[in-house]
């Protein structure tokens, strides 16, 4: 499974892309990530999740998960990230940092 996150927008408007393949991870970590994606109900999330609140300079995320059964992409505003999806975003951010 490969998880890719493209972050756009924000005050600076600078695009940042992070991509992690679970094949390269220790089995235990790989299972943990798969669990986070499943707990997020990722394959059932709509392709676009917009925030209806006013504001400016929030990030926009495009999250793609590619697995054995195909690929699904969700574009979501920072203010509208479902609480169940946040752990996936955090995991990719932290794993890209190290």
């Amino acid at each position, binding site marked *: 499974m490969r998880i890719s996150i*493209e972050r*756009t*927008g*924000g*005050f*600076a*408007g*600078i*695009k940042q892309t992070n991509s992690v393949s679970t094949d390269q991870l220790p089995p235990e970590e790989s299972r943990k990530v798969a669990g986070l994606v499943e707990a997020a109900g990722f394959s059932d999330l709509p392709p*676009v999740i*917009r925030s*209806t*609140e*006013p*504001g*400016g*300079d*929030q*990030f*926009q995320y*495009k999250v793609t998960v590619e697995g054995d059964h195909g690929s699904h992409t969700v*574009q979501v505003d920072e*203010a509208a990230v479902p609480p169940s999806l946040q752990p996936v975003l955090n995991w990719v951010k932290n794993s890209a940092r190290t």
Partner: protein
Amino acid sequence: MKPQATAICSILPPHIVRKLSDKPEMRDQVLRDLATTERLRGIRQAFTMSLLPSQPGTKHRTIFDGQKTMSLPGTQVRDEGGAPTADVAVNEAYDYCGDTYDFYSKVFNRNSVDDHGLTLTSTVHYGDGYDNALWNGQQMIYGDGDGKYFQRFTICLDVIGHELTHGVTQNEAQLVYSGQSGALNESISDVFGSLIKQWANNQTVDQADWLIGAGIFTDAVQGKAIRSMSAPGTAYGDPNIGDDPQPATMDAYVNTTDDNGGVHINSGIPNRAFFLSAKAIGGYAWQKAGLIWYRTLNGSLNPNADFQTMANATTTVAGSLFGQNSAEQKAVSDAWNTVGIAPTASQFAALSAQAKPGQQKAATTGD
């Protein structure tokens, strides 16, 4: 094709919703959104009521520390009149909010972002290494930056002015944050963010650097700022973070679904139109070009305005303020033509005369 907002009316006040629902092509969308809007408005009002409003005509800043979490607002660390703290981010947020409040008050006779003395609430140290500053509809939020490419986001006066101006736009033209109206929303924040910096430093058009976010990048980044209003697309070029993607003219307009339809990208076009207007007029940019843009924001834009509408409206307002065919109106018209948009002033003459009741106020050109 520019992306459409899914719930365009959620940020509209009732009088505009009523006006829109008179248009047959808008009616269905308006009615669909209305139920959602009323529910969200209830939530927002409940939140706003929890913040104590200031006395009319007074400045009230309050600063919270997020302590690297994403909980809002965090712990209150400084309130209006309180002594400086040992935390530079707290003091920057406080001082630069003060400059922004003073600019709007003294130059445009505006009492805070809502013109009714709204308390200016900021949270600093939001998140862990968070690379952003934002306005969430109710308050400002500042991250510390990752330290590798970005420093703390309170470091620049124009960034704080930019964020607070999102609050002004939210209370005036309410430009939908998507596509061209979103790029105008962004551009207006850059325009007034830059003007606040110029005003605080007493700089003329020729003395100003016309950069947005100069000082946010660490020394590791090859770039002088986040954006350049005078030369969009030239602010940075770095092997790690890429090249400044801003176009300077309409023929380089970027069609994308990223960034709400490129709101931080295509804002380069109206940014440069403002710079060229101010440059041609000369002197202090806030006195004439800034006044033209402020009056336009304050009276003659609808939430879905595009670049052509902005060009027409600013040209019309320039004519109303300084005279038809005046040097100021010609400066604005020439500026838009240079970026690839030919303004037509006449068709908007009637529109600009219809200011929103109680919102068109005398603005001084002093200070």
